């Protein structure tokens, strides 16, 4: 009897204990104090701008030493030795890369981050409490960034999954070649009307000129010659852009924002990774550059990794070409000795195109990276016209405008009787003009010379399938719907 009463009391107490703790008002809901929920962010102009900023940053993240390294080490312009980076460089130089290289992963992921941000913005823009004209511009910029990101992916990998919304299913297969090209083209064309005129924009954001410039290069690299010529003409007819008078000075920090630059990656040493190509460009132990008087400052890091220009490329320049000015062929080291890179070393000349300044900090330099500049528009139109009609006066004229800027004399129509002869010259001209700007690989591929040049350098295992990079292994592993590029 006693035991039963005890048991009863125990049961009663247990019940009360359980009840006492169950009547809470959803205490298990998470409280993200330091993070922002969508309903707080995308309704305000500041929030939309922040998301757009992230899209821009992600789309241009690879536009610095990375773009150059991927695009030049596989070509005749430059190569690399030394340091930990050599592990990534050797496969590029030797055409022995495979889908597990980290660099392909970075390229793939950073652009898809930009696409993700742009998609998020486009889906939620109607929530924003901003004026219609501002909305239109945000939409145009998001479309521009997204199309630009897809174009970068297309150039490297061929068509990739075309994600137009964050609600698309996770495992998208690769788009067809035509779908991808159509999308890039239509998005850029749709963006142009609502983008600001060049000179009126917040520097670093897209303009009508930037969209037209990207379209010009897109048409050029997809061999749509008529469209190339027409779009290049539209850029020229804007009347805003012109060639900068001095080749070597147009990349300096003090001349940023000049009218030759159509679309750049803006860099600032206080925001990593900025422009970091000079870390590998500087030769070991250098202190002074006799040609210009430039002296190394202690706050410029000089990596163990070395970015070196090939002698054959250096020797291909015509005499008197101003575009030779940025090359460092000799320097004075810490011991006071003069090191002759041209005569005593092999393939060791350095391209000091992006001259470092006092403001640089460690690995980070502030020179804006030129993605598209006016000289490119002129040469693109020249090439397109040649492809359409064969050698013609306007092509020659456009090429000469670029040559004259660098103190070179004119070429004449008579010297280039055939389409292929002029095309070959344009290839050379582009090499001299755009070295160290990440354009060589796409130019060689477009002109069908990438593999031939590789063979000439002794890379005998190079074959056609190397004109496309492999889809990164981690992307293949996480998406069974993807098919790898041939040969990998």
């Amino acid at each position: 009897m006693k035991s039963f009463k005890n048991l009863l009391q125990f049961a009663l107490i247990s019940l009360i204990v359980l009840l006492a703790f169950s009547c809470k008002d959803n205490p298990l809901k998470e409280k993200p104090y330091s993070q922002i929920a969508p309903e707080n962010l995308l309704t305000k102009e500041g929030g939309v701008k922040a998301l757009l900023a992230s899209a821009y940053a992600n789309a241009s993240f690879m536009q610095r030493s990375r773009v150059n390294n991927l695009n030049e080490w596989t070509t005749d312009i430059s190569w690399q030795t030394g340091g930990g980076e050599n592990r990534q460089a050797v496969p590029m130089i030797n055409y022995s890369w495979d889908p597990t290289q980290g660099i392909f992963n970075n390229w793939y992921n950073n652009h898809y981050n930009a696409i993700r941000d742009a998609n998020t913005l486009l889906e939620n823009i109607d929530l924003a409490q901003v004026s219609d004209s501002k909305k239109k511009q945000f939409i145009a910029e998001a479309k521009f960034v997204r199309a630009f990101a897809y174009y970068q992916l297309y150039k490297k990998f061929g068509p990739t999954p075309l994600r137009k919304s964050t609600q698309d299913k996770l495992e998208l297969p690769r788009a067809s070649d035509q779908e991808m090209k159509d999308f890039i083209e239509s998005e850029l064309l749709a963006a142009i009307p609502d983008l600001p005129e060049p000179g009126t924009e917040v520097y670093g954001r897209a303009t009508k000129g930037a969209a037209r410039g990207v379209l010009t290069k897109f048409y050029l690299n997809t061999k749509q010659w008529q469209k190339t010529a027409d779009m290049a003409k539209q850029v020229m007819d804007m009347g805003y852009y012109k060639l900068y008078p001095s080749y070597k000075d147009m990349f300096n920090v003090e001349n940023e924002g000049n009218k030759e630059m159509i679309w750049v990656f803006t860099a600032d040493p206080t925001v990593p990774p900025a422009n970091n190509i000079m870390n590998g460009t500087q030769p070991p132990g250098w202190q002074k550059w006799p040609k210009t008087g430039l002296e190394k400052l202690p706050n410029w890091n000089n990596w163990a990794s070395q970015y070196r220009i090939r002698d054959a490329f250096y020797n291909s320049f015509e005499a008197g070409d101003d575009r030779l000015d940025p090359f460092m062929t000799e320097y004075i080291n810490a011991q006071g000795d003069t090191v002759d890179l041209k005569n005593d070393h092999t393939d060791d000349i350095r391209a000091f195109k992006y001259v470092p300044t006092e403001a640089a900090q460690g690995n980070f330099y502030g020179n804006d990276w030129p993605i598209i500049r006016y000289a490119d528009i002129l040469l693109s139109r020249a090439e397109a016209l040649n492809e359409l009609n064969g050698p013609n006066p306007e092509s020659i004229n456009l090429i000469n405008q670029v040559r004259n800027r660098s103190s070179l004399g004119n070429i004449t129509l008579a010297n280039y009787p055939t389409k292929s002869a002029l095309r070959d010259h344009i290839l050379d001209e582009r090499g001299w003009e755009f070295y160290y700007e990440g354009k060589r690989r796409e130019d060689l591929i477009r002109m069908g010379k990438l593999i031939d040049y590789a063979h000439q350098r002794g890379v005998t295992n190079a074959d056609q399938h190397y004109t496309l990079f492999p889809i990164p292994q981690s992307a293949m592993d996480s998406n069974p719907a993807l098919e790898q590029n041939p040969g990998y």
Partner: protein
Amino acid sequence: MQLKHILCFSIVLLFLVGTNGAKAQDNSEVTGTVIDASTSNTMPGVNILVKGTTRGTSTDSNGKFSLTVPSLSDTLVFSFVGYSTKEVPINGRTQLNVSLEPSTFSTEELVVVGYGTQRKSDLTGSVSSVTSDDFNKGVNTSVDQLLQGKVAGARVVETTGEPGGGLAINIRGASSVNAGTGPLYVIDGLPIDNSSAQAGSGAGFVGSRAGRSELSSINPDDIQSIEILKDASATAIYGSRGANGVVLITTKSGQKGSVQVDYNGYVGIQNPSHNMDLLSPQQYKTVLNNIIDDGGGNGSQRVDQIANNGAGTDWRNQIYNDNALIQNNNLSFSGGSESTQYFVSLNVMNQDGMVKSSAYDKYGVRVNLDQDVSDKFDWGINLSANYHKDNYAPTGYGLNENAGALYTAMNWDPTKPVYDSNGDYYVSPDLTMENPVALINGEESTRSTYRYFGTAYGEYSIIPELTFKLNIGGDVKEQRRDSYISRLTKQGSAFGGIASISEGQATNYLVEGTATYSNNFGKHDVTALVGATTQEFLTIRDYQEASGFATDATTTNNMSLGDQETYGLNSAKFGYTLISYIGRVNYSYNDKYLFTGTFRIDGSSKFGENSKYGYFPSFALGWKLDQEDFLKTVDAISNLKLRASWGETGNQEIGNFLSITTFGPGGTPIWNGSPVVGLNPSRLANPDIKWETTRQWNIGLDFGFLNQRISGSVEYYQKDTYDMLLNLPIPNSTGFSSQINNVGSIKNSGLDFTLNTRNISNRDFTWTSSITLSTLKNEVTDLGGIPEIITGNAGFSNSFFLIKEGVPLRSFYGYQIAGIWQQGDDFSQTTDNVHPGDFKYVDQNEDGTVNADDRVVLGNSFPDYTFSIGNTVSYKNFRLNVFIEGAQGLSMLNNNLVDTYFPVQFRRNKLAEPYLNRWTPNNPSDKYPSFVHPLAQGQKSVNSYTVEDASYVRLKTVKLSYSLPKSVLKNFMRSATVYVTGQNLYTITDYTGIDPAVNSNGNANARIDYNTYPLARTFMAGVQLGF
């Protein structure tokens, strides 16, 4: 919120008390004395219980007791640690004199289990108990060091030799890929949060990957016992936090009687137990110049002069502190009256690091109070407050300009002097690293921590069989880390000094109510427990940095003196809540057949809307074979118990907010010349995220022969974890690389064996031994359809931990080296760029080239078995304790060896052996390459040379002590012991890195040795005095 319910609770209590009518009982008083049967001394502190109730008392300092019993026909149970428990039926007497028999290994000991205690003989779960006598005898700055090698199935791995220590504990393998794998620590009933309150090591300062132990806030001398709960039956009561095992720490409580004062102090010196062999300056010059002659390196980097008249510089000596001092002082007071007992301790510890500029200082105080207010009610409070200061030397995984002192000291050119002719720190044009001495003197980082934690409880017995307990606990940790990089370093002078302050405050509080019912009905014994508990965690952080100071003098003490343009700011706030309900039933029939069932319901705020609550049951059976009639008469068998258990526990140690979409900092573009803070989505939310569940079964046999002269246990377990919280790779085209999902499973199984023997036991001479042996097999059994996940990075090594079905977690994945290419070999087999003298890698798929497809599993971090052997020999008043431990069949990535085989720069120093014995045409070694073209085949860093066998056997501690005899002490002192101890004395291993046991990656299941702070060989002398 919770306050409302405590109130509700108390009202319920009062209500029940009021309605509880007086019972019809005798309530007579029984008194008596308890003595030790062998010495006839009176015994204070003996525990006396009225059998079948929770009513009891203890003997006072004269061994006397007085107790009110419900009835004179009840039975009293007398128990004391180290003595056989005795049951004495009162049989109507009011005066009882009892004598207890000592028994060194008693099965009647009480063991702490989750939310209560149990007799060791009644345990059905797998619980290992370590009391203060068994703790490791060496330097113990932190609780985890006490347990190293003591418990079968619990692997304690040092992560750094830094002062303040750092360890990673794994109980029965690793059961998760992405969620935490450390056990739950519970101190006096309060589960604590082991993470650091502040984040980061400071701007520009290289911090080590493995932090110092957060458990160092607990003074090891305050600990009475540690219980390790290993199987599901023991841990399921901790539900969602029990999957990795539970470590229960119980602090000392006071003793009845006059105050006892104890002083414990030691002083010791520490030196590195092992250093890797580098090239001497002369060897460096000869070898490097030879390599240049053979076509490697660069002609302009020839070594000519050796500074200091040919002696060069031993960079490690420059940064080491010889004979670094450690000292510890502990003073405790313990005493009390019949109803109130207290324990107070004060502790001061100072430890200098073996690397200059590193140190650890700790000051702590503890007050434990217990009071028996009446027969029905008692309460207690355990409070601890401490302050500790950490001084850090720059060490860690940073590279090149960001490398720490240990890395630069190993890699610096030994032919150069420390200072140049101007007295400035020497800067080498061929090395992109700071001068090691400049780093030590120019970079400073200190952290101060204030920690207060404690528990308070109140226990009320409504009736003797039914007790209520309310437990409240709190833990407040405040940390502040100051770091400053001065102009003595290149980095500091480039930025004009870099100062940063990082602060954090982590608090948590616990409110818990339990009700226990305990009774016996004839041969049936039942104890039941129900309860509810809630715990809330909150962390608040802030951070500031600035550079461009006019002078280094103010360091971090006046941030406004820095350049405004360089100001950096940040803050964060986050937390989570847990709510749980628990229940347990212990039943035994005739003291022979045992059954335990537990059930727990857990809710956590970290989990998705759709699955906030998890359910965790467990069952266990025990059979005391030695109580059976057919074995009872066998004298030789003193204990034989078979037990089996099964249960489910959970793991919820993942980050916050994974189930919701939020925005955080994204890319930062420069618009109009200024940075613009970008925001982007932080994750792809998963609203279905839930617990990771581990199903474990365990079968064990506890045995004892010849009156416990030989005793021990053997058990086998298998743990299957499913619904693993995995960072599932999702298509990269989503803009995210992974999403946390519940997918995949992992299996751990093994054998735990413990043996304790009293080999010789005479009046003057005794010898006892203690042996443990554990085996472990770990395997990833399901990865949700993903073929493999490859992670890992350290220095220039990337992607080498393989997670794949059928293979142990994070197995090392890399290239196999067959030997060295020799002159005259058939080079047509390969299209790779190889020359005689280069590594010959195995082309596994025989396609003519060695690339990522030719990688194979090279080993893993799980030992095939670990063991320990402890021997204690005592002769009269001398005592010698020798402890050996070891592990076999595990590997570690020796990442400093990677830098030697794949040099980053030609003029960096290297490990001696491979270079001194390198391949040359005159010495066509088949083991070491020529180092003329070390990077020609790319940097295949992780290979069969650099993933080394880290098996070892170590003489861990030797302690010799002498206790002054009573005849000398007389009434002056209670006890006095002096001792000397040596720690980490000798190791047998093939491993060539710093130490086979230290793992600077901080993860016991993914072992990397890189720039590891050396392990100390310590010699210390100390005294223990009792007044």
